[in-house]
């Protein structure tokens, strides 16, 4: 059982470039989340989804977009990368209740230079 899988593990972008962070889970979880983690700032919710076709903004959505066409996949899109988006990004999923018992992926470390 793979759990939550994120790719890539590391990425360096130039300012203005675009990229998609991939996230897939094989646990048939309805809820999925994207977080960013910065030193001294903790985990901040970017976007979340309560099921296929339904997404909503979290605390820090600006500069990002998401889609949820299937239960398994929840990609995060950066359209015009900025240095402020340098961070470690985590995808998570959960079952049962929203925001309970989150399963996290191993993260994507992104640097925007």
């Amino acid at each position: 059982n793979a759990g939550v899988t994120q790719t890539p593990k590391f990425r360096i972008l130039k300012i203005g470039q675009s990229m998609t962070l991939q996230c897939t889970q094989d646990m048939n979880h309805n809820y999925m989340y994207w977080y960013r983690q910065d030193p001294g700032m903790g985990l901040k919710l970017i976007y979340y989804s309560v099921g296929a076709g339904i997404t909503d903004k979290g605390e820090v959505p600006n500069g990002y977009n998401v889609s949820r066409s299937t239960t398994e996949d929840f990609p995060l899109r950066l359209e015009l990368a900025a240095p402020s988006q340098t961070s470690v990004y985590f995808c998570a999923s959960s079952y049962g209740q929203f925001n309970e018992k989150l399963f996290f992926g191993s993260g994507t470390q992104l640097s925007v230079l």
Partner: protein
Amino acid sequence: TQLLEQSPQFLSIQEGENLTVYCNSSSVFSSLQWYRQEPGEGPVLLVTVVTGGEVKKLKRLTFQFGDARKDSSLHITAAQPGDTGLYLCAGEGAGNNRKLIWGLGTSLAVNP
């Protein structure tokens, strides 16, 4: 604004010592989750406490939820190097506010 304060921020101890880390807020939470995060990995859920005054044990780890559901503590007995990591608490808002509030974490190093 709901905040969760974790203390201490950093802790370095010798193998075999006991320790307690704290997670405090002025807000009431419907539940509180504890996670451990190792370098280069995502957080892993340790436990969820739901009832005020609840105590849960996970081997050498003891978790307590405050009576008023505003604070929590994690006590580790006879710490081992494998306990090293970042301990995060996350509180779920009460009532209709299902927002998850994260603390900044306690970074624990257990030296052999």
